[in-house]
């Protein structure tokens, strides 16, 4: 009889920080202590707190251990699993003091990271073994599909999704129920369901987390969508760079077929549905729906003009419904618990919850799911644990290469689709990159643009050439050669690219530039007029100097300098030759007297 379960994260983050060896070590130690019959090890998907991985949770008490190393395992097994004493030094302790005093034990749900979260799309991630269809079923899995097929008409399914207010989680925020109804309205015949799992935004990994942590949820949702829209086949287009996700999804599909949850006559309803995986080679443009379908068809991934929309003429020229992974992940819960369950969360026009991938200058790097309308401040300062190293919050970038920046003055903004767009940013897939005072906004804009220049498919001129020219202007500015005319030219070009590009990639590519220019114009001006980078990032605009009074002449800097730019004799102040200096900053780190500064 199992009395305790040890959940070990097997997501990509924790796998790379060593959770696989942890699992082996736990198995060994548990066997050594004769606990194999009493304690079970479960490999799960991502818990979300990737910064503190590898993560281990011990149930029934829900004790949350972070950064567990192989050498810690023996202690956890002999102390906690055998003797019932938690290993306090490993327990993640960011917990409200009031809770700490009252609680008999501190569990996962009491931590500030988890407390404000509301998990719908991620509800099973980190809770079940993603490779066990039985565990998914135990958590009400496939009950929504059963309900839809046996108790609801396709029209009722679509109406429920419409009533729930669910909007596309991949970026645009188009109402999902409406999208389904367009495909359903097409004449009967071959139709398709497509899942866009080509998660391409730098820093966003919520789709990977669902695929790795709860793959059956996607299988179930796509089957429900197939029933609602009259489609009998589905395709999941997923990046080949997600090997764990691909393997678990394939196992989920195989297991679902074996149980007859995919295939012919599901639940005796006469409804047939099957699902296939197609791997993407990692082109960003293939996240655009028409390019994605072109790629599934076996062609080079290039977008095609709309209309006709995919609902009319999509994959293989047939009516197709395409949704993002996170969108689908909400569907089974909505069908099972009703539209009310979902539309009572969130704001007036954005219902439910949203998953954000927190990255950049933030303490708790990881995945969080919060109700729509949660303030940026709460996400960054409370759940995210704030900016580390005592630095000041400068801005948050949302929506990746298509999005924009929200400055510190807007920290109290309630995050939903429309508020973000009003601020010149966008929801995008939910990447949220936090920047502090040492980040240069011009450099950030250049970073994202470099990405889109690389990823532009080249089909249309405004995107192919326009983004390249725009990048060159930014390069000129960060090199210190920009003029005020360049800034005007830059803005004009941004609008031109937005208005004339064929697909979403080009239409949104200038957003990071426009948004940073609007919010941090003074930084652009400083680069152009004063030839200065306020954050101290752009190398050509920096000079590194030694403060004579503080220099003791220890020679540490001249010895570390890779280009021999520092000269001076022992016990006398040194000097840097600006012509030779490559601004690597090695001397600043080496100096014990804080005598070297960059300006």
């Amino acid at each position: 009889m199992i009395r305790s379960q040890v959940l070990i994260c097997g997501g990509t983050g924790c796998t790379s920080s060593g959770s696989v060896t942890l699992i082996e070590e736990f198995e060994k130690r548990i066997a050594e202590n004769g606990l194999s019959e009493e304690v079970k090890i479960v490999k799960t998907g991502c818990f979300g707190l990737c910064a503190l991985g590898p993560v281990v949770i011990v149930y029934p008490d829900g004790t949350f251990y972070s950064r567990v190393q192989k050498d810690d395992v023996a202690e956890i097994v002999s102390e906690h699993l055998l003797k019932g004493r938690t290993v306090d030094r490993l327990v993640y302790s960011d917990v409200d003091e009031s809770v700490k005093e009252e609680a008999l034990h501190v569990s996962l749900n009491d931590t500030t990271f988890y407390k404000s979260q509301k998990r719908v799309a991620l509800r099973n991630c980190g809770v079940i073994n993603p490779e066990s269809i039985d565990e998914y079923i135990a958590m009400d899995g496939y009950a929504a599909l059963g309900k839809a097929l046996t108790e609801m008409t396709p029209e009722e399914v679509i109406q429920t999704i419409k009533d729930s207010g669910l909007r596309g989680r991949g970026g645009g925020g188009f109402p999902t129920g409406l999208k389904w109804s367009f495909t359903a309205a097409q004449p009967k015949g071959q139709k398709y369901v497509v899942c866009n799992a080509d998660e391409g935004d730098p820093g966003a990994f919520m789709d990977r987390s669902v695929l790795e942590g709860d793959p059956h949820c996607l299988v179930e949702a796509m089957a429900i969508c197939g029933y609602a829209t009259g489609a009998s086949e589905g395709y999941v287009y997923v990046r080949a760079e997600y090997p764990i996700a691909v393997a678990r999804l394939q196992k989920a599909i195989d297991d679902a077929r074996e149980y007859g949850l995919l295939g012919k006559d599901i639940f005796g309803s006469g409804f047939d549905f099957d699902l296939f995986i197609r791997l993407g080679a990692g082109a960003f443009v293939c996240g655009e729906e028409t390019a994605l379908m072109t790629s599934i068809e076996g062609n080079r991934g290039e977008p095609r003009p709309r209309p006709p929309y995919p609902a009319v003429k999509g994959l293989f020229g047939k009516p197709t419904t395409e949704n993002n992974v996170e969108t689908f992940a909400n569907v089974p819960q909505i069908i099972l618990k009703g539209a009310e369950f979902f539309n009572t969360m969130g704001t007036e026009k954005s219902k439910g919850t949203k998953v954000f991938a927190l990255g950049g200058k933030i303490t708790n790097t990881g995945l969080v799911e919060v109700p729509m309308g949660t303030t940026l401040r709460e996400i960054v300062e409370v759940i995210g644990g704030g900016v580390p190293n005592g630095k000041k919050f400068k801005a948050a970038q949302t929506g990746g290469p298509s999005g924009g920046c929200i400055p510190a003055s807007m920290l109290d903004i309630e995050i939903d689709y429309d508020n973000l767009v009003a601020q010149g940013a966008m929801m995008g897939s939910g990447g949220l990159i936090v920047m502090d005072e040492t980040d240069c906004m011009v450099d950030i804009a250049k970073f994202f643009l470099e990405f889109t220049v690389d990823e532009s498919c080249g089909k249309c001129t405004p995107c192919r050439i326009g983004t390249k020219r725009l990048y060159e202007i930014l390069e000129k500015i960060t090199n210190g050669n920009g003029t005020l005319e360049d800034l005007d030219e830059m803005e004009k070009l941004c609008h031109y690219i937005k208005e004339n590009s064929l697909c979403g990639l080009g239409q949104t590519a200038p957003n990071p530039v426009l948004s940073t220019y609007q919010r941090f114009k003074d930084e652009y001006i400083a680069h152009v007029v004063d030839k200065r980078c306020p954050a101290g990032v752009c190398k050509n605009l920096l000079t590194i100097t030694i403060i004579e009074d503080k220099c003791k002449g220890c020679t540490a800097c001249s010895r570390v300098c890779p280009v021999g730019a520092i000269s001076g004799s022992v016990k006398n102040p040194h000097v840097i030759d600006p012509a030779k200096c490559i601004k690597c900053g090695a001397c600043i780190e080496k100096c014990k007297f804080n005598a070297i500064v960059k300006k």
Partner: protein
Amino acid sequence: MKSLAELAAIKEKMQNKVVLREGSSDTRVVVGMATCGIAAGARPVLNAFVEEVGAAGLAGSVMVTQTGCIGICQYEPVVEVYEAGKEKITYVKMTPEKAKEVVEKHLKGGKVIDEYTISKV
């Protein structure tokens, strides 16, 4: 899968295996499992609780867990029962047989077995 009944059967079978992970039960049964407890036979008691709670269908509402030494080593194995809104009950000198009885009468029936509690020893 031809019917909802088939699905329900799998769910039923698996329920006990995942319910442990909910982590928020109204009732907690805590078994002292320090060296003194283990020496006095706490492990069979702990396992008996897990088994009986599962058999009684209470796994969803009763959490069976362990703790270290409470400090009354001469009374081990010690088992404490915490119920929301009620006073803590401490059972002492437990055995697997007594554990079964506690599950039956106290956890299921709501009646504390006075003669096993610390106040009666």
